[in-house]
């Protein structure tokens, strides 16, 4: 007869039966003579860490879709060791594409697992609104090293991200690593709205001498056109579960076709932003835009609601 007396993987032992009873008493620290009426081997407080990890991993996995990953945060609040496990289980947003521990600092901030990403503070000016974007939440001063940029959001915005070539989304295309982001704004016309639709893009390119055509043309993002949903009787965008609250701020941006010829790369959502709860939004971005660019574009929708114009 063979006996298996186990508590955790690290202590797994397989023994011959002759020795097993005595040994298992030692290992388990429990008297096996009362086996039968009381199988109290299960001391839950000493749950093997691999099992705990497994359960918490399932909590994490099950919240791959938003609404906000509350349960992950709640589990981290149980005790210190759970928080550590949760931190391990939650992957960095670059890997998982999820941002979990959001810290509502100043105007907007993004963080993963307590790891803070970017913050912005809103500065109202008479004619426009500035957002100071910083790598640090508690230091928004402009002279500081952590200051990385500013977004100025007038009613209409002209935002040129000329470091990204339109060809970057083609196979083999590249986007340069950006050291700064030139965001210029023109308050009055003539202006090229940043979030332009395909139709007025064409108008502009036909009627006006739009600079930078050809190989060096800039990547232009446009709103993804919503579909009419018959059952809901409204215009819908598919956010794949990442956005749960209807809001004018929700948007998806795709690359605008350079010459009006749309390829499959123009269906790919490059940036999406949307509401999941009171004052909580998700942001998903991908190549070729950077975190800073994505964040700045999303911030702009707070002020101008330009995405819905």
């Amino acid at each position: 007869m063979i006996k298996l007396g186990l508590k955790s993987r690290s202590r797994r032992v397989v023994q011959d039966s002759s020795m097993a009873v005595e040994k298992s008493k030692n290992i388990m620290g429990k008297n096996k003579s009362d086996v039968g009426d009381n199988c109290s081997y299960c001391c839950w407080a000493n749950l093997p860490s691999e099992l705990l990890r497994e359960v918490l991993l399932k909590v994490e996995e099950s919240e791959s879709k938003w609404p906000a990953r509350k349960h992950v945060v709640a589990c981290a609040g149980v005790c210190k060791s759970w928080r550590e496990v949760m931190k391990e289980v939650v992957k960095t947003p670059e890997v998982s594409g999820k941002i979990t521990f959001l810290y509502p600092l100043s105007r907007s901030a993004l963080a993963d697992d307590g790891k803070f990403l970017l913050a912005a503070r809103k500065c109202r000016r008479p004619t426009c609104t500035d957002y100071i974007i910083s790598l640090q939440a508690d230091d928004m001063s402009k002279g500081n090293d952590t200051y990385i940029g500013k977004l100025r959001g007038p009613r209409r915005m002209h935002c040129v991200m000329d470091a990204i070539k339109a060809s970057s989304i083609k196979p083999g295309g590249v986007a340069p690593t950006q050291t700064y982001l030139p965001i210029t704004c023109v308050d009055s016309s003539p202006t090229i709205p940043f979030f332009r639709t395909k139709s007025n893009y064409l108008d502009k390119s036909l009627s006006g001498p739009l600079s930078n055509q050809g190989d060096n043309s800039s990547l232009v993002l446009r709103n993804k056109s919503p579909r009419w949903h018959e059952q809901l009787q409204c215009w819908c965008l598919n956010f794949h579960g990442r956005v749960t609250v209807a809001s004018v701020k929700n948007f998806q941006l795709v690359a605008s076709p350079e010459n009006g010829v749309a390829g499959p790369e123009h269906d790919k959502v490059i940036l999406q932003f949307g509401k999941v709860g009171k004052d909580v939004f998700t942001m998903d971005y991908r190549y070729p835009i950077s975190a800073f660019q994505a964040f700045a574009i999303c911030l702009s929708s707070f002020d101008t609601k330009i995405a819905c114009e």
Partner: protein
Amino acid sequence: MVTTDEKGPLTAKKKSVIIRSCDGDEFLVSESAAVLSTSLKKILEEKEDRLIHLSDIDNKTLAMVIAYLSTHADDGLSDDLKRSFDQEFVSGKEFDVLKYLVLATDTLQVTCLCYTVAKKMADIMKNKLVEWVRREFDIQNDYTPEAEAEIRRLDAWAWDDRQLEDD
């Protein structure tokens, strides 16, 4: 109590083993089912013995695990059927029962069942009060009241509208 999942007489091809729970009940299990457990497989490879005693799995839990193993060892069942069996298997089970199950899957090293049970436990844990979780897992809260308040303040969005259950 002896249960069998073999319909016909034992043949050389379909060998069986007897597994005894910690409270003495014995279960007759086909070898094809038993070897789905990595632990049992190792034992069977090393020993000729056909009686395996599990000193830390009670009869109720063992019966459930064996039902699971037997179903998954059944070549006649499609993967879809097995998947729906898995769902049925954990549905409606008390958290306590799942705790014993997940420990048993750890002991026996049945990875796929471990995942299924862990998933179910995670589903139950959601929307429970942190206090509930601490009680169920017998966890000592090692946060100071200040530290806990700070955590809740920082992630206020996660705590605000949780529909908490404490049952």
